């Protein structure tokens, strides 16, 4: 088993690992009861979101305190499109485009050529609060604090059949993220750690960051839109502090920069959250907060075993 893992070239490690997880999910999807499929789809959706955010944060060095914004926007876009009777595929595509433009816009406004961690973090924080506010206050179109409910899978599919469509979409999005990361690996690390050197070599760190956020927003929006039929509802609390913190917890626990680490952490921790149950969500959030602080302070490389880590700085 270990030798099989070692045989995979470093470059494709992340691809391989994600394919494995998605195949496992596929197999489970054949046999599992509906509630389990919903749980698994939530886990995979968040995994994809975590991977996309890690692309920005770990490889790109962009601290985004509102990573769940495009996910939430995606769910709303899909819900609205379905309410208006537009075919679902357009919902997903639009969510992807809107998410991409949104995050790219944030990056373009909030980032400067050199390091600019703090003000961008604040900006994204304000943005997430604003989005929650917008979602709550608009009743006619966005459903106000109740959100938009009754989202059903498209094409008349049942939950379990739609699961395979969803996995296909997730796999594509994962591939996008991992491919971007592996192909542009050295450039990303360079512009993250030594932007001056990158600039002198002809790369513009800001454009690269905007591009990363574009991709991250695209993936976040698309996966949110693809995911919402499982939960059935798009609601304002998706923009609140909790989902955003959770994404960062997954990245911290999984090891930032590894892409697969956050993906796995998201999948596992989401399943744990489901097991603990929604009645304990406040306690769960508290525990997650403690875990986050603990990991950030004492385990900056994350908790997952190091042979999953790629060679990093």
């Amino acid at each position, binding site marked *: 088993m270990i030798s099989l893992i070692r045989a995979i070239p470093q470059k494709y490690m992340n691809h391989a690992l994600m394919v494995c997880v998605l195949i496992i999910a596929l197999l489970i999807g054949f046999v599992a009861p509906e509630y389990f499929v919903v749980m698994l789809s939530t886990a995979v959706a968040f995994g994809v979101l975590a991977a996309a955010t890690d692309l920005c944060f770990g490889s790109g060095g962009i601290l985004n305190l509102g990573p769940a914004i495009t996910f939430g926007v995606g769910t709303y876009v899909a819900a609205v499109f379905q309410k208006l009777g537009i075919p679902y595929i357009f919902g997903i595509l639009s969510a992807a485009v809107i998410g991409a433009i949104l995050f790219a816009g944030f990056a373009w406004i909030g980032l400067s050529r050199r390091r600019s961690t703090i003000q961008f973090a604040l900006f994204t924080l304000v943005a997430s*609060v604003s989005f929650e506010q917008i979602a709550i206050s608009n009743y006619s179109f966005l459903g106000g604090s109740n959100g938009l409910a009754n989202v059903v899978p498209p094409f008349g599919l049942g939950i379990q059949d739609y699961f395979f469509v969803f996995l296909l979409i997730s796999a594509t999005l994962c591939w996008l993220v991992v491919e971007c990361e592996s192909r542009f690996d050295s450039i990303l690390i360079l512009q993250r750690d030594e932007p001056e050197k990158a600039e002198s070599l002809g790369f513009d760190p800001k454009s690269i960051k905007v591009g990363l956020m574009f991709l991250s927003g695209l993936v976040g929006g698309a996966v949110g839109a693809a995911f919402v039929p499982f939960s059935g509802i798009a609601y304002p609390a998706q923009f609140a502090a909790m989902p955003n913190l959770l994404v960062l917890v997954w990245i911290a626990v999984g090891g930032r920069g590894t892409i697969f680490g956050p993906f796995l952490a998201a999948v596992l921790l989401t399943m744990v959250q489901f097991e603990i149950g929604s009645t304990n969500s406040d306690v769960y959030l508290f525990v997650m*907060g403690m875990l*986050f602080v603990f990991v950030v302070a004492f385990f900056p490389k994350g908790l997952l075993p190091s042979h999953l880590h790629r060679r990093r700085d």
Partner: protein
Amino acid sequence: MIGLQFFIDFMVASSVLLIAAMGLFLVFGLYRVVNMAHGEFVLLGGYVAAQMQSTGAPFAVCVLAAAVVVGFASLVLDAALIGRQRLSSSLTPLLATWGVGLLISQGIRLIMGPTGVSVTDPVGRSFEFAGSVYSVYQLILVFIAIILALSAWILIHRTKIGLRVRAQVTNETLSELHGVNTRLQFSTAFFIGGMLAGAAGALLAPLAAINPSSGSSFSISSFMVVIMGGMNHVAGQVSGALVMGGGRNLIGTFSSVTIATLATLLIVALILAFRGKDDLVD
């Protein structure tokens, strides 16, 4: 008179912002340590004051208790998370304090419930002037803000202690060579910052009910005041508070909460685009 009413509202709003932001000024403006838990510190101060008041303590004692509790919390935070990391990484304190901030607000939510508390106005009187009614407590807050700003200015820019702090902030190694105990100084500053935040929470609590989610708005406003004012000088804080207080009042009178929030986002964006870059390069 509309003008006078607006002016007094504007002064009150600015004073509120200044009082809340002063603690952050010490920590973030001077030391550039991003304490994302600042808003939750203020929140905690408010809750402590509410608890103390329900036991019948006089208001001044409530404020003092709030300051002490939050000061203690910031000592713990410093010892556990920030002290070691302050110089090596600007990201770790940011993330760690963000986590701690959420812990505090979640903890408050779990212990005290999500509905929030309120603190009664200790003065409770209002007076009429030129056809409008003004609350005495709000005017007292304006005075407190003025005194706070003056004391901070004198302390930081006109005393030897302040000189040492400014030296440390400018060039840590060199100031150490001159005999400044940097570790102690930072911890003291952080402690004072925490006390100020707690006191601010207690002082501001009578104005509006607070709930576990209020922390983030305190954080955002305080950060904006500090950043907008240019980080290093007390006068900057005052001007930042004035600008934000005036702006928010102006927007608030004409529109709804949604627009006000969006406008805040826009203002933050503009500030970042045109100003923040230079001051916050790390």
